[in-house]
């Protein structure tokens, strides 16, 4: 029970918060506060997104016509490599876990910080150095033209900046490992007293599964890249056939990490969507344990399917069959999630706010991305579709349509918690619409092109494909405008938006039992442990215009009927 004044202190808009409790650039550079590190990560990955996004637009401009000479073939190769490498290593992998996860994870556990705050900061600086090395490949004037996969033997022969880039990816790998390790330990040892594994929000299950992969798979990337550097500098004869090495072995090494890494990219996104769907449907999530365990199942199955990237590499038939069969099983836990989200919305009180719009586009786009994956997992069709635009469209539907959409939805969801101010919901929805339309316009034609045989990574093409490429290019710019609009809406809100109280959306997980923005110590009080999807436990506080756990209200103030929670 708490008086109105206390409630205002606990759940209102906090003038003194983690953002302004200490001042000066040093207080940010040397902070070990998970919230500040999360915000810095968010700024970092956004920068990487813009950079790689500009690369993408340059690529699309080159492809506007089949004989365009905007880029030379060499420049085109470098451009798509940098687009891929920066997007994968510097943006998608750290995006949701390191930015949103860092901010939200300890608060969802009712903890003051992650288990190893200094390691967390180290991880951020490793991200900066790693990205710096990756980009140094451009600044050094050499560029990088191997594709983000660094396949041997080409990566050994080319004289572009493979060593800088691989070293950058190596460092980024350690950044990722440290984040994952930190999250695993934090979830294991720092849950609020009484918070069992199945009282955790599903976002944490997503992050936990992601972290398992990060810890188990990323070291293999590390050794792979070190061996590649050694091969390139000393010709040790492990990957280079000229010296008796095995170039396909590199693919095994690379995909032992990079296939699980695909799930590093999507699992946190799925976690975010589980939160958004439940909160904006105001309904207990359907099949909690199924969603939770499907995350772990995807993480573990992800280790058994790496060979499906190598169907045309000369891999033996038996191994190919095994990998193909296991690939199909990944569809099961993924579908479990989608059906559970849909069932959660059924008869819920759905509010089509910006985050919810993003969540709905996620389900649609991820559905298409996942289902087209089956064509690529099936051997007979993959031989035809391998290395065509069909593959490009497939993984962009999952990575951009999935992860980026989930990231945007998550950022819109937690933005008011981060900065204590509300964004313009209508403009947010417009940005979502632009992203959704632009995205589909970009990548739907690519499915068609791919199925008709347009190979990926080509700077020019047959005239018959031009119309698809032009749609795709228009779509890419629309997508870019949509993301920029979303970015503008958020940045404006962070500085000028209307001030907002602790829990405007009526979410029941622990991070919302705090002021907005949160205090330096996250919670001024001990948060009351409740089921993260028990929305009935919340009551609306008119004075604060926010939702508060019923135990904080005076008995007289509690309404007899629960009002339908309304979202602004």
């Amino acid at each position, binding site marked *: *029970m*708490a008086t109105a004044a*206390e409630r205002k202190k*606990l759940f209102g808009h906090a003038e*003194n918060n983690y953002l302004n*409790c200490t001042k000066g650039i040093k207080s940010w550079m040397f902070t070990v506060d998970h919230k500040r590190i999360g915000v810095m990560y968010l700024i970092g990955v956004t920068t990487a997104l813009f950079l790689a996004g500009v690369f993408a637009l340059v690529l699309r401009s080159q492809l506007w016509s089949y004989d365009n000479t905007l880029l030379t073939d060499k420049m085109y190769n470098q451009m798509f490599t940098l687009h891929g490498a920066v997007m994968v290593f510097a943006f998608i992998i750290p995006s949701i876990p390191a930015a949103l996860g860092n901010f939200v994870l300890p608060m969802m556990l009712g*903890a*003051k*910080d*992650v*288990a*190893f*705050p200094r390691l967390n900061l180290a991880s951020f600086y490793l991200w900066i150095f790693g990205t710096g090395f990756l980009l140094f490949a451009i600044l050094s004037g050499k560029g990088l033209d191997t594709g983000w996969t660094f396949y041997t033997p080409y990566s050994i022969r080319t004289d572009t900046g493979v060593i800088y880039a691989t070293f950058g990816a190596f460092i980024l790998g350690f950044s990722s*490992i440290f984040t994952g*390790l*930190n999250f*695993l*330990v*934090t979830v*294991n*040892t*720092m849950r609020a007293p009484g918070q069992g594994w199945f009282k955790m929000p599903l976002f944490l299950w997503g992050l936990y599964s992601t972290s398992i992969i990060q*810890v*188990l*798979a*990323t*070291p*293999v990337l*590390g*050794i*792979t890249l*070190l*061996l590649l550097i*050694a091969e390139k500098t*000393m*010709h*040790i*004869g*492990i990957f280079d056939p000229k*010296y*008796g*090495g*095995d170039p396909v*072995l590199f693919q*095994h*090494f690379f995909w032992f990490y990079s296939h699980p890494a695909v799930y590093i990219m999507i699992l946190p996104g799925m976690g975010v969507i589980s939160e958004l769907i439940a909160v904006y449907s105001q309904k207990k999530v359907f099949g909690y344990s199924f969603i939770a365990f499907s995350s772990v199942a995807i993480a573990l199955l992800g280790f058994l399917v790496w060979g499906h990237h190598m169907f045309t590499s000369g891999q033996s038939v038996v191994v190919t069959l095994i990998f193909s069969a296991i690939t199909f099983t990944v569809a099961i836990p993924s579908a479990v999630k989608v059906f559970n989200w849909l069932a959660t919305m059924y008869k819920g009180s759905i509010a089509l706010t910006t985050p919810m719009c993003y969540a709905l586009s996620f389900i649609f786009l991820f559905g298409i991305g996942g289902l087209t994956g089956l064509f690529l997992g099936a051997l007979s069709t993959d031989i035809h579709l391998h290395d065509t635009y069909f593959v490009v469209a497939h993984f962009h539907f999952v990575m951009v349509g999935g992860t980026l959409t989930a990231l945007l939805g998550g950022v819109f969801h937690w933005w008011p918690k981060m900065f204590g101010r509300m964004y313009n919901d209508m403009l947010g929805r417009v940005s979502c619409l632009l992203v959704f339309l632009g995205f589909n316009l970009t990548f739907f034609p690519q499915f068609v092109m791919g199925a008709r045989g347009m190979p990926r990574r080509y700077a020019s093409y047959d005239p018959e494909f031009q119309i698809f490429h032009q749609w795709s290019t228009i779509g890419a710019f629309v997508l870019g405008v949509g993301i920029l609009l979303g970015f503008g809406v958020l940045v404006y809100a962070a500085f000028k938006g209307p001030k907002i109280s602790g829990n405007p959306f009526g979410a029941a997980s622990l991070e919302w039992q705090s002021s907005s923005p949160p*205090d*330096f*110590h996250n919670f*001024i*009080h*001990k948060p*009351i442990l409740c089921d993260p999807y028990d929305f009935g436990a919340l009551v609306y506080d008119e004075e604060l215009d926010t939702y508060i756990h019923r*135990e*904080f209200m005076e008995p007289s103030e509690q309404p007899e009927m629960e009002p339908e929670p309304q979202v602004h």
Partner: protein
Amino acid sequence: MAVVEPEHGAHDDHHDHGDFIAHHFDNAEQQFDSGKLGIWLFLVTEVLFFSGLFVAYTLYRVLHPEIFDQAHVFLDKYLGFLNTLVLLFSSLTMAVAVRYAQLGKNGHVVWYVLGTMVCASAFLGVKAIEYTHKWDQGILVRSAFDYHAGHHEAPAGTLAHTLGVSEYLIYLSVIPLLVIIGFAVYAGIAKLTDKPNASFFSVCMAIAVGGYFVGAMAGHFYMEVTDGGFGGRSEAAAEMMAYENETHSDHEPTNKPVDHHDESAVDQQTAESKVAPYQGPQPDEFDQDIGIFFSIYYCMTGLHAIHIIAGIAFLAWILWRSILGHWRSDYFGPVDYVGLYWHLVDLIWIYLFPLLYLID
């Protein structure tokens, strides 16, 4: 359920538990458990980091057993054995150091950690002898492999020649020598400026790094006595080689080259016919890709050596905090964690030793 607890002031970091408990932990045990799980997870990443090299090793050994048969004679199993003993002993001292940290006896921890560090450096010393001996003979990675049998003398007039060691060894030894000098000088300065702890620490560090020279001298002495060790060049190696070549065909059907490389079968025969005045393996007895074995050897042992060096750095931190007397029965985590890391380095060597040195 206590609802509102106006506990500490919002920005008051000082809590009422022990000195070394970070503000975000409730108690010492939670902090210890977190650290322990963290270090175990870190060890998992280390195992998977090394796993890539084990995959490369297994693969080339399964596909090209003849290369491994030809190459292992260059590795001296007795030097490997010596190094195994050194590492096992360092693990023992580390385990005892953890025990005393748990009992809060900081003085004991200092000595046992110092012992561990001396062993670590000695291991590197022996390794330096092994490496430089191979470099002298041109036993390098695949592309640079240029084996030439025979004794390698440093050019007359050089320090290496006077000492009767490899030139490369002189270059390698400069690093630990500079470190020792640095710590010795700092020990003196600290003594003069009345910082007894820093002075004592520096003396310990100088001793710890000095272990390198103990190891190097032991390795060098062994090489002198056995006239270049039991790998490669000496009479003893010649006999072993001849013996093995004879016995190979009788007892090791599985490890024999599968007649895949025509030349390797021929090599085998020429080697067998050369029993009498044997001068060590000759270059033309090898498969062309024998350098791949040494690529893998250098990658594995090199990465392992880097981990030893990192371990010495971590141990130095433990040593410093032991001198300051930080460990108590409810706060000994760092010693335990560094200990676990150190044992993992030992574990990896336990596998590397038979995999690399004891191929038959």
